[in-house]
Each structure stands twice: as structure tokens, then as C-alpha cells.
């Protein structure tokens, strides 16, 4: 019984530390590649770079979000009633894991609380890329 609890404890803490690492990795990628345009607090830049804070582009369906990272975005979009028109560069040089980590980071920060993005989900969409 004690053994069982110990294993449970170890696996929980292993899981928790993996989560912490995923969060830290995601944040590091965010700071390196995203922060300049989307700002430290995810508020973006009026008229140019859309906010990630409370944005349905971020917290909504994952496919569209993953595609924005892999393919970039070259159209004017509307977020929370305001329009934004700056081109977003493709970030396909990031690995599947890096894309999953940074998207999980933005989906669980800046007032968003959506489920994480998995590496496999990125891999599938990258293969489908035209």
C-alpha cells in the first residue's frame, strides 16, 4: 500500500514537473520569438499586432492557431471588435514540440484557459501543409 502511494506520488510529481517544464519552455520561446510584437502581457499593439489576451484566435479551435504559427498570417483580422493588419511571419523553423509548448503557454496565460496543444497535433498539420 505504501509502495502504491509512493508510486502515485512520484508519478504525480513527475507529471507536475513535466508541466512546469513545458510552461517554462513555452515561455522561453514566447520571449524569444513572440514578445516583441505581442508584448510581455499579450496585449499586442493597437491596429498592428493582435492581442493574445482573451482572444478567440488563441483560446478557440487549435487547428487555426497551429496553422498561424506554421504558415504565418497575411490578412487583416478582427479580434474583439478591433482590426489588425500586420503580417505575421511563418515560424515553421520551430520544432513540433516548440510549437506545442509556446501555444500551450499562450492558451493558459493572458486570461486564456484552454486545453494544451500536443506535439502530435502539430506534426499532423505540418504534414498536411500545402
Amino acid at each position, binding site marked *: 500500500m505504501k509502495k502504491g502511494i509512493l508510486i502515485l506520488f512520484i508519478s504525480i510529481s513527475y507529471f507536475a514537473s513535466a508541466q512546469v517544464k513545458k510552461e517554462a519552455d513555452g515561455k522561453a520561446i514566447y520571449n524569444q520569438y513572440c514578445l*516583441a510584437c505581442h*508584448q510581455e502581457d499579450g496585449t499586442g499593439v*493597437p491596429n498592428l499586432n493582435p492581442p493574445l489576451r482573451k482572444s478567440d484566435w488563441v483560446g478557440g479551435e487549435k487547428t487555426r492557431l497551429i496553422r498561424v504559427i506554421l504558415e504565418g498570417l497575411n490578412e487583416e483580422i478582427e479580434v474583439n471588435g478591433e482590426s489588425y*493588419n500586420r503580417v505575421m511571419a511563418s515560424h515553421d*523553423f520551430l520544432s513540433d514540440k516548440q510549437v506545442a509548448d509556446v501555444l500551450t503557454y499562450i492558451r493558459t496565460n493572458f486570461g486564456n484557459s484552454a486545453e494544451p496543444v500536443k506535439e502530435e497535433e502539430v506534426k499532423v498539420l505540418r504534414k498536411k501543409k500545402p
Partner: protein
Amino acid sequence: MKKILLPLSLSFGIIALSSAFYNKPSIDAPKADNITPDADNGGIQLAKGFGAVVVAEETGKARHIKVLPNGTIYIKNSNAKNDKGITVLKDTNGDGKADVVEAFGAYGGTGIDIHNGYLYASSNSEVFRYKLDANGDVIDKTKPETVITGLPDLRQHEAKPFTFDESGHIYVTIGAPSNVCQEKDRQKGSPGMTPCPLLEKNGGIWQFNADKLNQKQEDGVRFATGIRNAVALDYDPASKNLYALQHGRDMLYQHYPEIYSAEKGAELPAEEFFQIKKNDDFGWPYSYYDPEKKQKLLCPEYGGDGKKLYTKAKKPIMAFPGHWAPNDLLFYHGNQFPAKYKNGAFICFHGSWNRAPLNQAGYFVAFVPFKNGLPSGPYEVFAEGFAGGPEIKSPGDAKARPMGLAEGPDGSLYITDSVKGKVWRVIYNK
């Protein structure tokens, strides 16, 4: 000869008629003497001796502004929702506050000015004009004439600010739809293109005939090149020169952390103040200006290492810290302000978004004294506090961002804000 003379004399007649309206303030134009500044100067801090009255609180996403000789104010808005692309403000009782607020125009844009009895306004791809009546009102708000059409609107540096000289020309900025002309814009590691193909139709200032309709880009002349984007643009009749301020490039630190620290990336490159002559080349995208070294340096996308010089470009007449975003320039010719301001330059810094991880900066109006067409001293802070706090972490936090400048008939200075369209009128208290 007669054939030439007739249209000539006709056009002189028109100019004479319109300049009567254009140059002379009407008798009942608002005077600063009758105005009491707001107790808090509308939430901004001003140079000693100056006060401000809020003309209007919310006019839309305001860009550039023009004040007519009779005091009527026209403001171009970047957003044309509900056909409010241009705001008209009038202060009929002379207390400094607008009591008539109207709007028209189905397109967003930046530029607005007066020329030969017409109100000119620009979208991101065209320049339009509206005939004004003797009261300075637009005669037909729904049917402007098209002066220039089909300019590239590529959703980056897409504003088309403009200014006029005294010889019948209009100068229009056509910004570069790119950060630094990489093969893949703003992507780390993507090389710069040599020669940069964007420069043929973008990244410069084009000169057109101010009075001819339906001109295309090919009908104009590329007056100056190598300018990434110049939202602040003004012709100074006192020195007979064209001037502009450039928005310098981004991403030195983000893309080259091995060369530039975060601090260097926030301060570099300088925002450059240009005096522009025909066929000048200011060096975008191959170079940027380092204000410490007082040199143009080769950009790392083109083989630069933070040290290699670039010698083919004309240098600025003055340099400001990086990313402050100069968005309007006004040469002051009024008599209300103290003598040192006469013929000097006011510059509206919209404020940065790309100095992170450092705090954002630049949300203020500067003054630069001028002598013989060149700066005669360092810049001074003329108006600040627009953003509403000492430290701005993200531009979205700014309560207001100074955007446009105009001189009133009595020498008052008008300032617009791009967040909600607040308009200040700055007067000298004596």
C-alpha cells in the same frame, strides 16, 4: 501664345481667389486671448508658460489634422466606421471647445491638408480632394475628386501622408511593406534581398502634380528613396526644403542577439530626421543609423556585424532614440509662441511598441529649434504625459498617443490622439 496665356491667367485668377480664402484668417477666427486653459491642461504636461484646452474628447482614431484660417478643424481618421473617415470640428462661441462635431468620408487614412481652396485627404491607396466654399465647408461630401489612385496598400507602413510645396507639387510617402526587405519578412535568419526589389515602387517619397486628377504612381516621380516609412512629412516654406522623419527598422536584438543586447536593440537604430533633396537615398534597407558612432552601419541581414559602415546613403540632420515612431512634423510659423519657436519644428512621437523587454517610450511632442534650415540646438520635450503614466509596458496601456499636429490661425498648436481622438489646443499663457 494666347492659348497658353488664357489658361495661365485663369489659373492665376483661381489661385488669387482661393488664396484670399486660404491665407487670410477671417475676422472672427478664434483668438487664444479669450481662452482659459483647462485646469489640468487636458491631462498633459507642457513646457513652461504653455496651457492647453481640450477641443474635443473623442473624435475617432485620429491621424493628421488641419486647421483652416477661420478656425474650422479637419481631422483624418484611420477608421471609417459609420462613414466617419473625416471629422469636422467648429468652435462657434470662441471658448476653445468644439461645439459643432460632424463627420463624413467612407475611407480610413492618415493625410489631410488644404491646397488651392480644396481639402485633400488620403486613404491608404489614394489621395482625394473636396472643393471648399467661402466658409471653408466641404461643398459635396460624398463626391470627392481623385487626385492620385492605385498606390500600393500592402498592409504594412501603408499610410499615405502627404504635403505640398509652393510650386504645385504634392509629396506622398509610399512606405516599404517590409521591416528590412528580407526574403521572408520579419523571419529570423531570412537573408536580405540585394538589390531590394521593393524600392522600385515603395520605400520612398513620390512627387506628383498637386492639381491634376487621376494620376497613377507611374505619373509621379520617385523624389527620394531608401526611406522605410515616413509618416511625419512637411515642406517648410521658410527654408524651402522638404523634411521627413523615418520609422527605423525593428528586430536587431530579436534576430541578432549575438550582436545586439536587449538595451542596444531598444535604442538602435535611431529614428532619423531627414532634409530631403531630389534623388536622395537614405539607405533603407541596407543600412541603419547609429547615433553614437554618427554613421550609417550595414544591416546584419546584408552582412553587417554592428561595426561595418555603409557609405552610400545620406545621413540624417538629427537622430532620436529607437522606435519612438515620429508620426507628424510641423514647422511653426506663428507669432503667438515666444520667438525661439518661430520656424522651428514640432515632432509628434506616437510611442514605441518594439523596445521590449524594456519599457516603451516616446509618447510625447518634441520641439527642435531651427536656423537656416538645420537644427540649431538639441530637442526639447514640449508636451508629455499623453500615455497617462510614467512607465508604459505595452502600447495598449497608453491612454492617449500623440499623432497629428496643426497650427491654428492665431498660432495655437493643435495635437490629436490616435486612441480615442482627443484633441488639444496648446496656447501660450505669457
